[in-house]
């Protein structure tokens, strides 16, 4: 196994050499090419062997393409709708109308913010009841205007706060799941970064669920699981492994339908390429779904969730 530090050290060296070549005109092109080939091989080896905990860290990188940025890159056009029509508008859960593949759709996504102020306002993507109620309102527009719904999930979880509880965050999530399940239009969910617990599943009750290669989808954060089950914060990497939160594991488990590959090193290395890959995957699934009659689509969706996790339960063996 390649270790991360070695790879980073080599990356730095290559960068230094490249600067020399470019700035000082030193002719080291052959050496550079060789080194870069070697680095690429190392990278491939490293990223092929990523642990689930490595992915957790990749999924949380501050420079990972997120929310608004990615939606704007995936869609040809995005028109934001705001407000729950009840008293608030949550910047951490956003959505609206968009064009995708030349057609009108609705989109919903978590947004973590880019600037520090925005990140504070967005509580790093932890949405409030008002966010989930806005989501339901936009789902109702999708139903009325017969617009497919695409959700982009990236949240550590719903916000755990006094006001959120007083405003029934549990009920807001439940309503979001119920509304999404009942939509008469094709629905596709894409887990972009963190798919944290109830706050994620509220937008994930879709016909198709896709995941970026290094995204995570989990019932509890590895740190939370470490604290509760291992009674040891340092056990987070183990917990990440045990929770089966990575895209490949979830594909194996039948929880998701497709892993969308990321560029070597992670989505942040090539945000545009990532957006293109997401776009292609979403369009492909949408087009498959649109080929199905409504009844068929709804039956498939019902069965998908009615039977979800059935492999986890079985007749007693003992």
């Amino acid at each position, binding site marked *: 196994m390649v270790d991360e530090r070695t790879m980073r050290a080599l990356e730095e060296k290559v960068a230094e050499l490249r600067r020399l070549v470019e700035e000082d005109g030193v002719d080291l092109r052959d050496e550079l090419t060789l080194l870069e080939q070697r680095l690429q091989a190392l990278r491939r080896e490293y990223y092929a062997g990523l642990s689930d905990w490595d992915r957790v860290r990749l999924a949380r990188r501050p420079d990972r393409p997120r929310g608004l940025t990615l939606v704007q890159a995936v869609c040809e056009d995005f028109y934001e709708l705001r407000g729950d029509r009840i008293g608030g508008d949550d910047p951490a859960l956003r959505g609206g109308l968009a064009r995708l593949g030349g057609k009108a759709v609705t989109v919903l996504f978590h947004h973590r913010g880019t600037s520090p102020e925005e990140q504070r306002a967005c509580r790093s993507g932890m949405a409030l009841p008002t966010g989930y109620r806005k989501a339901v309102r936009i789902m109702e527009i999708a139903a009325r205007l017969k617009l497919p719904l695409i959700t982009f999930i990236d949240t550590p979880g*719903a916000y*755990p*706060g*006094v006001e*959120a*509880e*007083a*405003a*029934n*965050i*549990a*009920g807001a*999530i*439940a*309503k979001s*799941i*119920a509304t999404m*399940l*009942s939509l008469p239009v094709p629905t596709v969910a894409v887990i972009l970064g963190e798919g944290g*617990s*109830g706050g*994620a*599943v*509220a937008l*994930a*009750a879709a016909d198709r669920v896709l995941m970026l290669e290094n995204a995570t*989808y*989990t*019932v*509890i954060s590895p740190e*939370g*699981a470490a604290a*509760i*089950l*291992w*009674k040891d914060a340092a*056990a987070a990497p*183990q*917990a990440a492994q*045990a*929770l*089966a*939160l990575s895209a490949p594991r*979830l594909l194996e*488990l039948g*929880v998701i339908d497709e892993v969308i590959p990321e560029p070597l090193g992670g989505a942040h290395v090539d945000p545009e390429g990532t957006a293109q890959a997401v776009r292609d995957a979403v369009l492909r699934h949408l087009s498959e779904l649109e080929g199905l009659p409504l009844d068929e689509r709804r039956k498939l969706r*019902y069965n998908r*969730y*009615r*039977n*979800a*996790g*059935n*492999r*986890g*339960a*079985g*007749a*007693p*063996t003992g």
Partner: protein
Amino acid sequence: MPIRRDDRDRYVEVELRRGEEPLWLRCGACGELVFRRRLRENNYICPRCGAYFFLTAEERIAALVDEGTFQDLTLPLESKDPLSFSDRKPYADRLREAKETTGLKDAIVVGKGKISDHWVILAVMDFRFIGGSMGTVVGEQLAFAMERAAEERIPFVFVVASGGARVQEGVLSLLQMVKTVAARELLAEAGVPYIAVLTYPSTGGVMASIASLADVTLAEQGALIGFAGPRVIQQTTGEKLPPGFQRARYALEHGLVDGVVPREGLKEELVRVLDVLEGIPSGG
């Protein structure tokens, strides 16, 4: 705002393993030793301080269902440990221990019974079984219970006692939220009433799905009702929790439940609801 009597921490965890059936149980709130039979006759409420002892599913069913009418319909399912999960202890071991302690296959019992002459399908959680957590077995039992209620066209009563999703089954547990909501839609399409009874605790994934979608929602007095647990909220936000936070009366004042009912009045209250809904679903 003064703290009301029913905001107090009225629930006490007693020895959860009751294999040996001691004659006496000690109240975790006031320390009183109570004769077990006396406790049962008093709805498992401490006769000295009024604390509520946690109820097993069996005890809850005995307290709510007319004697001799309960038919256990729990499907013969058990968790297959789909992730081969292990923390400090393998999940398989935890499952085995929970089964031994409770005599149950998982954290829920499903059945059919009469509540003062009203037939209902009942699903009752048992907090002793890994904190009443919802994994694939609980999800499947709940979905089955709702399908059965829809089929038999009799009300569905769900008594919640759950700290949330079963961590050891990972995202498969999360998906039980979606599964139970899907089954609830089926119940709604059949026009069959669904009554939820929230007890201590009703939090996490169960609350953020099926338990929040009832037609009528009762809270047992003192019940803890919410999404995130109080400790998580304090740790994450540093907020000071208001008095009575997430307790039954707080939930009532914030429009989350239809009523708060003392344990001794719970059956009577359910009967009132079932009486007023007599004949529903209609058109049998």
